[in-house]
């Protein structure tokens, strides 16, 4: 992997973010609502609305608004929330932090469980163990989060009273309580990830186990376990990295439902609130931050991929 490739990829990320910013800006212009009306509520006077529009620069031509906004973003200023009057950047990054915490814990749990499950299913293909794993993973993929989340809250919080049902407590504020509050949401998200990834691992491994080089290795008299560890897993797990990287995208956007049900103020929920309130700076900042995170995670995945498989040549 050449430094040239890394540089190229970084330029691509910047270019992507630029396109994203253009699209977001265009879309927020089309949204059928007046930000000034949304801010001042249903009781705003005409003069107050006019003053506010002037103040927010809503009267300037769109391209000019975009240029000003982009200029500020490049200087690290993501704007001020129309809704709360506070700077958008810190709020969104804090929310992103919560979402990423949730995402990494879920991915951690998933890796611990999904890979062994996938291996068991592949090795014992067609046996009871395989059927059980497949059944679980089909169910996991089929059940939407709002069902698993609601059932989890009902069973483990309302009925058993083992865990706090909802809410978010920062780990810095109260570590034990913070972790307790994260258990259910992390489990709910992991169910889907585990289902997803264990199926992936299983099918990749089954393919690999049927290749000639594995057969050759077996014929050489290498033990079954060694073949699995040395030859099969390495190749079967490579595509898993891509899947995990893609799942980070899902975790940032798709767990909105989980964040909503468990009242976790992550970036997905912040974005929903921003869209409902037509809080343009918050929408723009939120989408940009999510796009950037997604790009960076995929960038890391690609680098990791190349590093693990030296045959892959990038230029």
């Amino acid at each position, binding site marked *: 992997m050449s430094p040239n490739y890394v540089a190229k990829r970084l330029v691509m990320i910047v270019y992507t973010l630029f396109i994203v910013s253009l699209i977001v800006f265009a879309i927020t212009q089309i949204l059928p609502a007046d930000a000034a009306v949304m801010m001042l509520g249903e009781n705003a006077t005409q003069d107050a609305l006019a003053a506010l529009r002037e103040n927010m620069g809503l009267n300037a031509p769109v391209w000019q608004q975009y240029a000003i906004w982009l200029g500020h973003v490049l200087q690290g200023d993501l704007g001020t929330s129309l809704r709360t009057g506070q700077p958008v950047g810190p709020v969104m990054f804090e929310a992103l932090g919560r979402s990423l915490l949730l995402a990494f814990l879920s991915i951690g749990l998933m890796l611990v469980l999904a890979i062994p499950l996938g291996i068991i299913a592949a090795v014992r293909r067609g046996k009871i163990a395989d059927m059980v794993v497949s059944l679980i993973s089909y169910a996991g993929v089929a059940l939407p989060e709002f069902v698993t989340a609601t059932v989890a*809250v009902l069973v483990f919080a309302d009925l058993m009273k083992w865990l706090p049902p909802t809410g978010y407590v920062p780990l810095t504020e109260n570590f034990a309580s913070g972790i307790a509050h994260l258990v259910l949401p992390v489990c709910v998200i992991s169910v889907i990830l585990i289902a997803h990834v264990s199926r992936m691992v299983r099918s990749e491994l089954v393919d690999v186990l049927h290749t000639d080089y594995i057969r050759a290795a077996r014929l050489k008299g290498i033990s079954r376990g060694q073949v699995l560890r040395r030859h099969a897993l390495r190749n079967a797990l490579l595509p898993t990295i891509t899947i995990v990287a893609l799942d980070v995208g899902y975790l940032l956007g798709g767990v909105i439902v989980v964040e909503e049900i468990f*009242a976790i103020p992550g970036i997905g929920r912040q974005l929903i609130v921003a869209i409902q309130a037509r809080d343009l700076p918050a929408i723009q900042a939120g989408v940009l931050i999510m796009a950037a995170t997604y790009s960076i995670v995929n960038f890391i995945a690609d680098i990791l991929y190349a590093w693990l498989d030296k045959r892959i040549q990038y230029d």
Partner: protein
Amino acid sequence: MLEMKRRFFLAGTAAVFAAPALGLAQTAKPAKGGTLRISVDQAASVIHPLLTRVNPEYLVTELLYSNLTRLKVDMSVEPDLAESWKPNDGLTEWTFKLRKGVTFHDGSPFTAKDVVATFKAILDPATASPGRNNVGPISDIVAVDDTTVLFKLSGAYADLPVAMAYTNARIIPASIATGDLKSLSTKAVGTGPFKLVSYEPDRLIVVERNPNYYDPARPYLDRIEVQVFPDISAEGSAMIAGNVDIISTLQPTEYLRLDGNAGVEVLRTPSGQFCNINFGCDTAPFNDARVRRAIALTVDREAMVNFVTEGFGTPGNDTPLNPSYQFFKAAKQRQKNIAEAKKLLAEAGFPNGLQATLIASDRPAVRTQLAVALKEMAKEAGITINVQTMPHATYLEQVWKKGSFYVGFYNMQPTPDGIFKLLYTSDASWNETRWNNKAFDALVAEARGTIDAAKRTELYTKAQELMNEEVPSIIPSFFDVLSAKRSWVSGYQAHPRASVFRLDYASLTDKAPKRG
């Protein structure tokens, strides 16, 4: 007599639904201390007291600031920062005597100058306060001395003391009102029973007892945490688990889920909150009162109570007043009458029925429910209604105040004058029906210049009769205000106005969990 009936109505229902709470509050002296958690179902995005717009924001600013007066649960007014008040004979000038020795959270003394500066800021269009049209017809405010304020009005207004309790009429220091007013978006300098500790709009707002509050007995609690729950079933779970002590507003489904859980008490009080179907009275075919009345005659009110409020409500009679309001006298209840509706439609030139598109925003969902119910009921009279739903933001931009047939939703106002002047007089700030009836305007104007209760009741009754006849909007039912609390909370009641909370009267019994 009427006043008594109304009081009885409120006190009676409150007693039925909140009997255990009341019993406790009256017998035991409230215990001091403790942390109370109250949950709200949407973010308190704005803590600037002059700019708040939704109930969670009103809750937070009520804790941090004081008004001149405040509303009791029976909707009568009591002193807050003002100790007493009296009008001149024409009700055009009101003198308020202020409490002495009160200080703001920053230690500066509270005087008449702060009241003057606050109201000037509210009335300044540049502030864009939603309270601008709701604090009374104030033309000038004068600080007579440090503890006396004179309000000069542009017309007679008997309800000024009630208007002073309005959700946006919180008193702020003159130095901020005339200086950096925007700074109140992130900090709070009030005279309220609590001080701001931390503020995360979408998650948690924490306040602690103001040791210098003017009433040494109140508040009883050390600390209040306002938690935001975007998902109502999560909110209910937190209540069942005992993580939340009060749910400020409850939906009927959650009310039924919580009812009967050990340690949870559900609270319910009738209110003047309603969903209405607005006619653009300046647009055909709704510019003909016969058409409007015909549609109103297709409505089965009892069915509406069951369907739209899920049984947690009372039937309406196409006027915005009900027994929760002062000066209310019940008129003859409009009943469903399809034959009469058809006859009226024929007279108005629609012998073969009518087609119309009814627009409902998606928030709250009950708007759509109401629209669909009307569609089904109106069918019988040959009226075909197409229901169109849209996102709330789009509705506000394109339909609200502009449309000719759409569903509205309103909190109870503090007074009859408040709701009439908000929605139905020609100069109403949200004149969404464009009804513009001079006779009605005159009745409301006369009532606001009258202090005699019997006379006011008579005038408001006439105004309602006129509305009932002309039907600028159909008001099929009123909602009860629902909330819930853990039984270890005492002194808390659901308030008919929904936007009033009075948590400085709440306390925790020794059964409440100790929270750090």
